[in-house]
């Protein structure tokens, strides 16, 4: 572990308290809703926000929290990049090496090499306001990496980009992060960015970690409503007994052995809707009322209320066949093979 930290920041009405370990070359994404404390965590790592009692940051076995921001071996990419408007792209990138003791000529050589690496070698003389969003993002990344940081901090690095640019910059960023041998902490509220860029996700809500794991684990086994919404699953907390998880009187049959508090998750597309009660097992079946109908990609997303609330994704044809309408009573079921249950 090159980064080992417990970030404690106490403010009136808000407490951030999270432990974080990041290995060399690893990318950890802090994921969470607005106001969860992601940016505060990043600012605390950078030294822009002080730690409260009990907090510590250790980088390469040395305490980092005792150092001022300008003495920490970090590089930070800000959400809106914050390129210095009065300096050219080259001088922006050379700023860090200059501050860390390189001579003017050396710093500019370093900067030129970094601009080359991010594919902007021919934009050296350009002022930030003449750069496109994607170019500015790459200059900001070059500026952060040019100081050879041990810890790279990225604050919503793709949030300010339009959808098309985002795709390209995301894959570029992924390559640069793969080349970077220090620890990377990335803050985002976009699950896709987190899944693509990070080796590990740490989900924060209200200043505390609610779930962490590899992107695959988190996507398959969400543990909070927020995570479930992010990864697009229906999630329920129930009680497991005898290969069955009961959620608010609706029994779900599950494969494998499970006892005690458990989660059940399934995709909205796994939900089937019927006008009348289907024959067969009463398991995985409940009666619901349609609370909303909206377009969702190529399908229609139905909001169901009842003993449990759920989303169901059905085809437009199915909506027509079933003659679905707002307020209608309907039967919903989900196949046992498509539900996923795990201990709470």
């Amino acid at each position, binding site marked *: 572990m090159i980064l080992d930290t417990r970030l404690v920041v106490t403010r009136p009405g808000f407490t951030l308290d999270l432990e974080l370990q990041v290995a060399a070359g690893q990318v950890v994404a802090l994921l969470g809703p607005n106001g969860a404390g992601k940016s505060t965590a990043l600012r605390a790592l950078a030294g822009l926000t002080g730690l409260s009692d009990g907090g510590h940051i250790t980088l390469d076995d040395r305490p980092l929290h005792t150092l001022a921001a300008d003495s920490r071996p970090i590089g930070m990419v800000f959400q809106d990049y914050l390129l210095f408007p009065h300096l050219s792209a080259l001088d922006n990138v050379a*700023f860090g090496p200059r501050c860390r003791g390189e001579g003017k000529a050396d710093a500019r050589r370093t900067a030129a090499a970094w601009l080359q690496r991010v594919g902007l070698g021919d934009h050296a003389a350009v002022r930030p306001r003449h750069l496109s969003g994607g170019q500015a993002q790459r200059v900001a990344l070059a500026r952060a990496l040019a100081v050879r940081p041990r810890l790279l901090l990225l604050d919503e690095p793709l949030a300010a980009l339009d959808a098309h640019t985002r795709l390209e910059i995301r894959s570029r960023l992924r390559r640069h992060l793969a080349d970077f041998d220090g620890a990377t902490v990335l803050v985002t509220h976009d699950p896709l960015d987190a899944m693509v860029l990070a080796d590990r996700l740490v989900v924060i809500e209200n200043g505390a970690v609610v779930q962490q794991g590899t992107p695959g684990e988190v996507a398959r086994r969400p543990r909070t409503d927020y995570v479930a919404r992010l990864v697009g699953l229906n999630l329920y907390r129930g009680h497991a007994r005898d290969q069955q998880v009961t959620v608010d009187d609706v029994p779900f049959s599950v494969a494998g052995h499970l006892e005690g508090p458990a989660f059940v998750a399934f995709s909205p597309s796994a939900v089937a809707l019927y006008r009348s009660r289907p024959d067969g097992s009463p398991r995985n079946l409940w009666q619901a009322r349609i609370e909303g109908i909206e377009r969702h990609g190529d399908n229609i997303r139905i909001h169901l209320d009842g003993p449990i609330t759920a989303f169901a994704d059905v085809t437009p044809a199915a909506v027509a066949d079933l003659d679905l309408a707002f307020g209608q009573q309907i039967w919903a079921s989900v196949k046992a093979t498509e539900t996923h249950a795990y201990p709470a």
Partner: protein
Amino acid sequence: MTTSTISPGRGARRGSGAVTGRLPWVLVVPALLGMAFLVLPLAGLLVRAPWSTLAVRLAEPQVLEALRLSLVTATVATAGCLLLGVPLAWLLARVDFPGRRVVRALVTVPLVLPPVVGGVALLLVFGRRGLIGQWLDATFGVTLPFTSAGVVVAEAFVAMPFLVISVEGALRAADQRFEEAAATLGASRWTIFRRVTLPLIAPGVVAGAVLCWARALGEFGATITFAGNFPGQTQTMPLAVYLALETEPEAAIVLSLVLLAVSVVILASLRDRWVNSP
């Protein structure tokens, strides 16, 4: 201190006059009277100016002397204000120290203080028998009152708040996150100030310096109290105007015209180049 432009925004269609109805005379009449009150005296100055003898009068040694002294002292005073006022503004805007509000209030006192009172206060401190003046005299043999240096001190005392307020405003308006970005790149606070903050607030500093210079150029009360009225030594343009008015009204008009011209040039440059620019 600064003029702000009124953005057209949603009111853009008002120009057509279709929606708004008649202008209320209760507002329009005082507005026109106010405008006339401000513009007429200046127009009078232009009308009564001895245009035919203007060139000759301008070339008179006393006029040139006063003009030179005014320009030099105002410029030196502004330089001094920049040297001390910009760091002071930085301290007020960026460093959280106890009593900051009190300090800010004290710094702006010369702004509202009658300049004559300022001159008296300066005499009490920097005068030959003053708290600091005594020591300056004994240690360095320097006396400020009734010298050109005294003029600079009086002008700086009165004009510096303009600079401090302007620069502090610019500092508060500037996005401090640029400074944070610089800190994460390893810049010390001095480097941040020099390479990031100062370039970002340059327009504010220039606007403040111009205001400060204009105020120093027009300084009268503190100057005549603290530095006296010696031609060539401490007699600046405003003092010369006042003196000439009693003996030679035409000369006073000419001197006033020069000051008016300088003011107009300053205002024009301020508006076009700094105040309205982002």
